[in-house]
């Protein structure tokens, strides 16, 4: 069974802070991580590898530093890693990103493509389904549990807000995974060494794909960012530091009365 897991290296947005004076983002020192939903997707693939001896390839589209994320994936147990990197890919919205990925994937062999539901920086949850559309394969999103069925199919638990569907889908197909699905394993020390000393990360650039520059990257993106802005240091209300609990309670009640909340 051949599995390709699409992962994204993202800044750990839980560690990002706003500079309270300027209202701008403090980006320095923010560690880069494998997007959490993707990591769960990778774990799901590794479980299939453990059970059925599946072959797991990890793929990412990003700047050259994204190879750190790929190495982490290899150290968790992935067999192969591919980095798609090229200036031509930059500035892509989800349409252009998914199209670029599709152009690479259409040349590869796979039974199952796994993508995390959404990335914590873009938060769109769109690339997975759009990618499946470009590849013309079925997709199931919001997968919380996964088992191999017979005759080349998968049995999935597809989550909704108020319940779930038990779904059977034939491979080749694509699924998007939720972080509720599993707890990703740790890297193995020996595999960290292998990832840096034995394994080669395959690089794909624009020249390796059958596509025109206008169809991808910023040019190929139907959506364009008109402007971006930080919400600005919100004018915070007063912070009271030296009240004892009784004074604090009285103050809160006063304020709530002022606002007609009580």
């Amino acid at each position, binding site marked *: 069974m051949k599995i390709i897991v699409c992962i994204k290296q993202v*800044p750990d*947005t*839980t560690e*990002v*802070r*706003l500079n*309270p004076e300027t209202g701008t*983002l403090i980006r320095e020192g923010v560690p880069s991580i494998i997007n959490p939903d993707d990591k769960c997707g990778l774990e799901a693939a590794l479980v299939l590898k453990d059970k059925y001896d599946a072959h797991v390839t990890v793929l990412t589209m990003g700047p050259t530093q994204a190879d750190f994320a790929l190495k982490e994936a290899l150290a968790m147990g992935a067999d192969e890693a591919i980095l798609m990197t090229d200036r031509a890919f930059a500035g892509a*919205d*989800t*349409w252009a990103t998914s199209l670029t990925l599709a152009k690479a994937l259409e040349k590869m062999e796979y039974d199952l493509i796994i993508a995390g539901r959404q990335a*914590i*920086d*873009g*938060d*769109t949850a*769109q*690339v997975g*389904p*759009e*990618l*499946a*559309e*470009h590849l013309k394969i*079925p997709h199931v*999103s*919001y997968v919380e549990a996964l088992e191999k069925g017979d005759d080349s199919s998968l049995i999935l638990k597809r989550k*909704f*807000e*108020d*319940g*779930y*569907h*038990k*779904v059977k889908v*034939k491979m080749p197909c694509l699924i998007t995974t939720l972080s509720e699905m599993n707890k990703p394993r740790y890297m193995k020390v020996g595999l960290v060494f292998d990832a840096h000393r034995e394994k080669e990360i395959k690089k794909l650039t624009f020249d390796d794909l059958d596509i025109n520059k206008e169809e991808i990257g910023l040019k190929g993106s*139907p*959506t*364009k*960012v008109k402007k*971006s802005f*930080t919400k600005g*240091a*919100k004018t*915070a*209300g*007063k*912070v*009271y*530091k030296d009240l004892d*609990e009784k004074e*604090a*309670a*009285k103050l*809160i*009640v006063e304020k*709530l009365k002022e*606002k007609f*909340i*009580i």
Partner: protein
Amino acid sequence: MMDKKDYRGVFVFVEQRNKEIQNVSLELIGIGKELAENLNQKVTAVLLGNEVKEIEKLGYYGADNIIYAEDEELDIYMTEPYTKVLKEVIEDKKPEIVLFGATAIGRDVAPRLAGRIHTGLTADCTKLEINEDNNDLMMTRPAFGGNIMATIECPDHRPQMATVRPGVMKKADKDTTKRVEIEKFSVKIEEKDKTYEILEVVEEKTNKIDIQEANILVSGGRGVGNPDNFKLLEDTAQILGGVVSSSRAAVDSDWMPKEVQVGQTGKTVRPDLYIACGISGAIQHLAGMEESEFIVAVNKDETAPIFEASDVGIVGDLNKVLPALNQELKKLKEEKEAL
């Protein structure tokens, strides 16, 4: 290349589950109506399902037209049949804008559809406006984990598609006198359209109050310390007539269920009062509650970012402040009742 001028109308995908129209769709009709008025156009509700109940609600909450694709095969959501039907509707009617709820269904069908018809899709919009200069839709959304806002446009492709989270937009005022014609849209779902098989449908109804409907939320984070301590918050909520919610930290530690999680990966709330107890105020959490009318924060750490968002900030121990607050509130209630 499509000619933009051919595309007119604001369409709202109406989500139904178990034949019940979901609130988020009514909220979208509200904003859809505003956008349509701005463009001098109409807002149309597009419903896929079978024997869906209370369809007239769509009119009460502002829809000018209703397109209803009714078929047994559309009763339960499946990606391909829905994508196929929506594509047919769009090709037939050529709407300028199509809005979806950012739900487990919306976030599945919208991107597949956008991929099929080659257009732009913007996710989780918190604001939708019409650009006065060129009548394009301006879609504002949080990015980078909610740390920044971006305004997106889809200048050359139609329809312009956007998803919006439940609880972000407001429903229009209900007008039960409004009657709207239902236009039936005929569909043909074939075997090959069933790209996967649903083996079982399982409902997991939770009896908890929906935190998105509550006017007062008393919310706890890591600082609450342990699950039993949430009792303090429950007491406060009870006296105020509110509901207890929590940050992601408390849910990840299994102290509170996921349904009450407020934040980027939880729910967006805009209650009249939000009391944040022992919540540090990471950006992901703020993204889910900063539109609350009045925010009170209690935290031991004076450098906690929550204080940058709160209207009243108390640096203190919630274990002391909440009981004192509960006492004060009880006193006030008794005084009121005595009158």
